[in-house]
């Protein structure tokens, strides 16, 4: 009687255990790509738009059969726009999700947090829109698919001198933001070298709401235009308060201004202002127009902004490099990424140069009648 029970127990346990040793299913093992973005928090707009671009690219690649015969899988984490979180989530993606590459971030400050982690683990990281030069200087595994601030600052300086035709500007930068300080520095260099003058420089901190004190001082300095190399949350409030204080001159900024919240918070105060960015949905290039159609179809009619387009391009550049490398081995993938040449992205033709940056054109957007309109392109 007992041996009978024991025998049955053995058979049942053998059956259960055999499940674990069953041969792998016929589906190919997915390639896991990691993404860290500010999906919630102060700059949620950046993270959400770039994430949507990334997801669209992934879905299109998988619909076409994946890469190297395997589907792409996305493991993504939210850094909540908090400092320090990007490092933590990057570590998690690398060690727990075992991603073969990392996509992130829009903000230079947060990219700088994760870059050393990716470099140490020899996992290639592609930043869709971090423009501060220091990001790729972290190491040879860090790439970006956008232009850097030395170009953006120069482009804005030339725009101010040649298009806005201003001689005298004030600079209002965010002292706790790497992007802001970097962009301000490059702008100043070229603006001063081209004969312009900077009458006054004022600072504010991330998260500040009241800029009237700085704006009153700017007003007293009597400038022709004000450069605000900050993020959209502060830029919108700055321009609104400036108009309330009677400052009517144009304000301009960099790609940190790009978000739909800019116009929601700033409204008509922003008329007559400009900012530089990486992409415009109004571009007549057929590749861009088709991307806009596909993006709108996927995301309930939303018009893609620069960060959606860059997130999309980052994934496609990665997929292209994977195909050329023929493997997910990190060293070979890194080399394939570094060799990216003339890749046709929706933000422009992308070639990764020896500093692992892309040389791309900047798009200047004019804010008119409460809307963001394409103004001109500035070639590199």
């Amino acid at each position: 009687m007992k041996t009978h029970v024991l025998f049955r127990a053995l058979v049942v346990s053998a059956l259960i255990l055999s499940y674990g040793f069953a041969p792998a299913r016929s589906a190919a093992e997915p390639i896991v790509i990691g993404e860290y973005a500010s999906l919630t928090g102060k700059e949620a707009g950046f993270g959400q738009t770039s994430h949507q671009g990334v997801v669209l690219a992934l879905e299109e690649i998988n619909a076409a059969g994946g890469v190297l015969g395997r589907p792409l899988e996305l493991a993504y984490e939210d850094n909540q726009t908090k400092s320090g979180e990007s490092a933590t989530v990057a570590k998690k993606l690398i060690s727990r999700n075992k991603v073969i590459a990392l996509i992130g971030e829009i903000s230079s400050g947060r990219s700088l947090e994760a870059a050393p982690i990716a470099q140490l683990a020899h996992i290639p990281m592609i930043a869709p829109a971090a423009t501060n030069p220091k990001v790729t200087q972290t190491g040879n595994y860090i790439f970006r698919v956008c232009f850097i601030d030395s170009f953006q600052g120069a482009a804005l300086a030339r725009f101010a001198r040649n298009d806005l035709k201003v001689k005298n500007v004030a600079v209002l930068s965010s002292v706790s933001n790497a992007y802001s300080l970097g962009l301000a520095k490059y702008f100043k260099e070229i603006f001063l070298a081209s004969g312009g003058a900077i009458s006054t420089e004022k600072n504010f901190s991330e998260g500040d709401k009241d800029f009237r004190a700085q704006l009153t001082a700017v007003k007293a300095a009597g400038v022709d235009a004000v450069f605000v190399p900050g993020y959209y949350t502060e830029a919108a409030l700055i321009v609104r308060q400036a108009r309330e204080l009677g400052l009517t001159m144009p304000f301009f900024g960099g790609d940190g201004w790009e978000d739909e919240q800019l116009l929601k918070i700033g409204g008509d105060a922003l008329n007559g202002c400009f900012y530089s960015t990486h992409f415009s949905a109004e571009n007549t290039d057929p590749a861009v127009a088709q991307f806009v159609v596909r993006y709108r179809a996927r995301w309930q009619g939303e018009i893609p902004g620069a960060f959606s387009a860059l997130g999309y391009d980052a994934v496609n550049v990665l997929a292209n490099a994977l195909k050329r490398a023929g493997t997910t081995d990190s060293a070979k993938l890194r080399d394939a990424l570094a060799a990216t040449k003339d890749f046709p992205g929706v933000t422009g033709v992308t070639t990764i140069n020896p500093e692992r940056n892309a040389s791309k054109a900047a798009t200047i957007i004019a804010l008119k009648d409460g809307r963001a309109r394409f103004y001109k392109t500035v070639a590199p």
Partner: protein
Amino acid sequence: MTEFLQQLLNGISLGAIFALIALGYTMVYGVLRFINFAHSDIFMVGAYAGYYMGRFVPEHTFWGGLAALFVAMAVCALLGVIIERLAYRPLRSSPTLNVLITAIGVSLLLENLGQHFFGAAPRPFPELFPATTFQVGGVYFSSNQLVVISVTLVLLLALRFIVMNTKIGTAMRALSLNRQAASLVGINNDLVISFTFALGSALAAAGGILYALNYPSIDPLMGVLPGLKAFVAAVLGGIGNIPGAALGGLLLGVVETFVNGSEYSTYKDAIAFALLILILLFRPAGLLGRFTKEKV
């Protein structure tokens, strides 16, 4: 000169908001001898109440703005009473440290509930009052700044009237002198304490809406820094002293604005806290406060 006057105006309007929030801190301290750290988050809830009210009232109207203000004040008064009932009353006979820690807990709870229900992304606050700018001799005022200054004045005077000229105000003052004696003379302590919290929270809500009118981007953590600065203002003026809180708020607002407009603008937050340290070192009772000696 115009720059000086403009900065002064900016400072006064910022200071008025600090004064409103500081009043809540100071009243609760005066009556209960403890700092209600959750006060800054009631300020945030007030701003969100105004945001949601903004969906029901038309923008740019006086009555719409006032309706939103009253509703937010009522909602927060209720919230204040509930918090007092649930979190602070059971600890009334415990050492003050326990209540302080509970207050911090309530503050964190409100902040995180706010992030959960309202989402952490900043939202644009509707323009509840008609917004125009006008200038007087080169000094620009926004009508919102005038609304802030006038509403603060009205509320300050109303508060003074309540505290000095009504029965419940007298009861509040009695409680702040000696809690046991107050209950011995027939004052319903629980009622008076609930009323104090309701009043303080209503003022915080008004502060929240006025702040959001001027800086129209609200998020669940918006109360942290203004709350801290208002606390500094309350201590600066003498904690427990109502005119002191108003004075402290104005002073802090003006100092911060002038620092912000100078080359040292990066240090503006540091200045607020440096002031706190200086006051505590040299005049710990605050500018208008007096040290009450404990009679044994």
